[in-house]
């Protein structure tokens, strides 16, 4: 990696050692240096997730985005987020996404493309299924079209004021609303603020009162995303099913369309609605969660006990009857295992009135089947029709027998159809009332069609899960960044790449420590004073350093009075009670190459000395300590380099890494703090200290407003504090004052000469006990 500022010249000339990366780079035909800088990492991440053809399409799409004439942002963002989107969404999302990008580019909304791509990954995580994502894209398109205004008489169209803000809010909104609810909320915003760009923008930024009110109104029912874990646990606990759950949208595709999608399952998982309201039924109220459970239980029943039947030789009526009968059979089997399910099924199952359908004028087939189904499940069904009773008894007898399968119940169903057939079944007027059993799936898995062949099945993609555990190419970890201007987080904004810090010559550090031997001795004396402060008295010791008089007397009394005395009459001291974990985070940005105020060494050298002495000292104290360095080159590339792990000792390998410390690039402090905090938070310790050694304020080449990164760093410090982590800053810059205070409050000290380390280090520790 080159150190220093990036070249300005055309980046097409860049070369990559890896032939695969080089080939992709040539295909990308991109002149942006920022893209070149992150390209290799992107490619590695993409290759871990994408198939060969998907990868080719990825590069091709990126190439297009680089030529929109909208700078490096769209292509950069796309290269970074796309593998995540592909890994999250089941199904091909590229075509619809590019369609929308094209539409935006053609309209005056091209400026919103980068913003749209920016939140696509979190949106995809929330929506999961391609069908849902397509609905979201459709919603964006509609919003764009309806809010891009043209002024009469002039051939200028203005970009939508709400599209960019909406894209930014989308992940948050989808955390609260189903797609259907989101559509209503968007609709309201467009309709009421069509002519006021400012108010429209406020509405979509969730800043106006009506915007929040409508949000509350549309927030109803049980969102799948909120109960997903509960449902997964439930499937596992009751059924030992580890099946994937995939939500589908309950929102109508277009206005006015009535769509009643039904649950189903296929090789890729069990499909369930994205939201379910509580149901008020004759049997009482059924919660959304219980409705989900009924849906899943029914599908589990089919998966366990149903075998597909050949559909070709049966009429639609016959097939419908077979489905109803089979649905009843699996539910009875489910109830046999879990009797409590009967209550839920019956609460949701309609109870058609016996005389509810007039066979003279209407096709009553569905009505008869729904009654049969009710009677099969409900001992108190109250029907008197002898044929119905007979068939219910025969179904129950089949199940008693044990081994009856789908084919047996299908035979029973066919016999029922023959027995109850009526002329009017053919009528066009069909009775629907009270015949829809909405927790049942669409039974697509019950049928095989010989004529059409089974290709569909054969070509089903193998199931894909997010390759979370895969460390191939170490995909970046993304962190949100705080935008003080909008007072909101930008999701997944900064990408942090991890690596092991390169090694140099360990002896260099030994020499350095030797040079400061006097200082080290001073530090050691100091630490020895520090140490005992954490001493704990251990009482009730069999053996110990002192007699514990209290206990000894008690034992003696016990003994005199004939009771077996406790012989643990000693006490001792230990420092084991001290339970501190320290993470030292080093700013390795280019400014460290400057000289410290009074000439002599560079800040980097000072930092190197400080971290060596620190690590040596902390190791001496016996506290677990980790060291890492960071620098950044735009938000797309924050590099985080591990120098020492918590479990590593301060040994040759670690010293070698410290010896190789180099300075370059910029200081995206917030992301680095969050990432370091991520590791530190995983430690179990009473006190967890994040010690930052830095020379300057946060900055990065893609940010002009310095206040932005400062505010984000401060926010990061607050977040860490909320997690119980203390952040402390040792500033290597004497002039640092304002911004350090702004970010770290009281928890900072200046370390401009290494000689001051003994003075400052105890502060770090003492500061904590306050």
């Amino acid at each position, binding site marked *: 990696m080159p150190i220093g500022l990036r070249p300005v010249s055309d980046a097409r000339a860049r070369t990559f050692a890896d032939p695969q990366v080089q080939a992709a780079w040539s295909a990308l035909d991109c002149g942006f240096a920022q893209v070149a800088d992150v390209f290799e990492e992107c490619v590695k991440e993409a290759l871990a997730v994408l198939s060969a053809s998907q990868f080719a399409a990825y590069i091709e799409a990126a190439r297009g985005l680089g030529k929109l004439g909208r700078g490096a942002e769209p292509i950069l963002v796309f290269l970074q987020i796309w593998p995540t989107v592909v890994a999250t969404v089941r199904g091909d999302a590229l075509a619809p996404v590019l369609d929308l990008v094209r539409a935006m580019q053609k309209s005056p909304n091209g400026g919103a493309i980068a913003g749209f791509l920016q939140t696509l990954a979190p949106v995809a995580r929330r929506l999961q299924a391609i069908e849902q994502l397509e609905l979201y894209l459709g919603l964006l398109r509609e919003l764009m079209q309806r809010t891009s205004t043209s002024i009469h008489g002039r051939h200028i169209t203005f970009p939508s004021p709400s599209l960019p803000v909406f894209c930014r809010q989308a992940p948050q909104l989808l955390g609260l609303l189903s797609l259907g609810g989101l559509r209503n909320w968007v609709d309201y915003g467009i309709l009421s603020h069509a002519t006021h760009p400012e108010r429209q923008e406020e509405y979509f930024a969730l800043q106006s009162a009506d915007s929040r009110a409508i949000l509350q109104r549309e927030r109803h029912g049980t969102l799948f995303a909120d109960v997903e874990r509960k449902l997964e646990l439930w499937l596992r606990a009751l059924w030992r099913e580890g099946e994937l759950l995939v939500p589908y949208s309950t929102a109508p595709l277009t206005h006015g369309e009535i769509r009643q999608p039904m649950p189903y399952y296929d090789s890729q998982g069990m499909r369930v609605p994205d939201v379910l309201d509580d149901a008020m039924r004759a049997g009482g109220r059924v919660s959304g969660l219980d409705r989900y459970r009924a849906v899943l239980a029914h599908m589990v029943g089919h998966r366990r006990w149903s075998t597909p039947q050949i559909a070709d030789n049966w009429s639609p009526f016959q097939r419908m009857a077979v489905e109803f009968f089979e649905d009843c059979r699996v539910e009875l089997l489910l109830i046999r295992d879990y009797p*409590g399910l009967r209550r839920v099924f019956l609460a949701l199952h309609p109870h058609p009135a016996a005389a509810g359908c007039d066979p003279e004028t209407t096709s009553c087939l569905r009505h008869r089947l729904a009654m049969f189904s009710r009677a099969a499940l409900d001992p108190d069904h109250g029907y008197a029709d002898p044929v119905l009773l007979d068939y219910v008894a025969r179904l129950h007898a089949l199940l008693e027998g044990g081994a009856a399968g789908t084919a047996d119940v299908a035979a029973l169903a066919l016999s029922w159809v023959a027995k109850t057939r009526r002329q009017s079944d053919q009528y066009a007027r069909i009775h629907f009332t009270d015949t829809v059993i909405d927790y049942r799936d669409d039974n697509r898995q019950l049928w095989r069609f010989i004529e059409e062949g089974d290709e569909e099945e054969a070509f089903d993609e193998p199931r894909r899960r997010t390759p979370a555990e895969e460390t191939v190419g170490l995909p970046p970890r993304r962190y949100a960044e705080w935008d003080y201007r909008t007072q909101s987080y930008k999701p997944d904004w900064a990408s942090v790449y991890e690596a092991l810090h390169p090694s140099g010559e360990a002896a260099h550090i030994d020499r350095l420590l030797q040079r400061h031997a006097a200082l080290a001795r001073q530090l050691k004396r100091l630490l020895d004073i520090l140490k005992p402060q954490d001493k704990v008295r251990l009482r009730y010791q069999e053996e110990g350093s002192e007699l514990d008089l209290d206990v000894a007397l008690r*034992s003696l009394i016990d003994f005199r009075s004939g009771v077996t005395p406790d012989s643990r009459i000693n006490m001792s001291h230990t420092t084991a009670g001290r339970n501190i974990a320290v993470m030292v985070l080093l700013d390795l940005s280019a400014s460290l190459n400057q000289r410290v105020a009074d000439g002599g060494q560079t800040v980097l050298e000072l930092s190197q000395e400080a971290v060596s002495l620190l690590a040596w000292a902390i190791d001496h104290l016996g506290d677990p300590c980790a060291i890492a360095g960071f620098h950044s080159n735009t938000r797309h590339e924050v590099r985080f380099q591990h120098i020492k792990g918590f479990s590593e000792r301060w040994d040759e390998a670690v010293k070698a890494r410290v010896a190789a410390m180099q300075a370059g690039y910029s200081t995206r402090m917030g992301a680095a703090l969050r990432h370091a905090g991520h590791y530190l938070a995983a430690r179990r310790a009473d006190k967890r200290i994040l010690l930052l050694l830095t020379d300057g304020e946060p900055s990065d080449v893609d940010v002009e407003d310095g206040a932005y990164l400062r505010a984000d760093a401060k926010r990061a410090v607050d977040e860490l504090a909320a997690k119980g982590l203390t952040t402390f800053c040792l500033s290597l810059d004497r002039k640092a004052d304002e911004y350090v205070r702004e970010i770290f409050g009281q928890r900072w000290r200046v370390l401009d000469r290494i000689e001051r380390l003994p003075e400052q280090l105890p502060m770090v520790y003492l500061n904590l006990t306050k």
Partner: protein
Amino acid sequence: MSSKEHFLINNQPFYRPQGNEVVLYAAAYAARLPVMVKGPTGCGKSRFVEYMAWKLGRPLISVACNEDMTASDLVGRYLLDAGGTRWLDGPLTTAARIGAICYLDEIVEARQDTTVVIHPLTDHRRSLPLDKKGEVVAAHPDFQLVISYNPGYQSLMKDLKQSTKQRFTAFDFDYPEATLEAGIVANEAGIELALAAQLVKVAQAGRNLKGHGLDEGVSTRLVVYAANLVRQGVSAADACRMAMVRPITDDADIRATLDNAIDSILG
């Protein structure tokens, strides 16, 4: 105190074998081999050892291990006496002297420096040095050492040393199979077999979540607890919640799931 009769088990403990462990244990005892009983907590390990001690007619000395335990707690110590000090044998020493079966329950809980005192008893030496007293106790010919050990929640810190493990023959225990377990529960608590079967089913729902939010499954012991509560007149659902769900988790999603499992199973 240390008389042999004192540690004899007079009444036959109720024990339903899960396989051929009774015969195998008897063989191990005949050869005086140390035995390790592995398995999740509450699956019948202690009951098994008790039963074997009864069956073999040997006294049984059990020690529940914990991390505060020192070697002296096992071996013995000097006590203050009016005239000076007096030595008191620890349970391990007593067992070695009188020829009892010594059962160290949940041995991983003890610190490793405590564990090593058993080493000389488990090899050809069959002796126990009492360092403080300056005595070496030669184990009685009938003495046997048994330890129990739960591999489930062992962490890197809490595992037996190889040098300890390699001194034992071992049994792998697990929760009994459903019908067997129902029989055990019905018998232990004196409830109907059908109800016991339902309680076991609830326990199995919990066990299915092991590794998915639960570190340990629901033990047979807890099922027996639930059954005992039912015997006291508590409703089956409440008994299940109180004995089988609340103790094992604080995770709201898991609680909701198991509560629903209870309602689904009890109908």
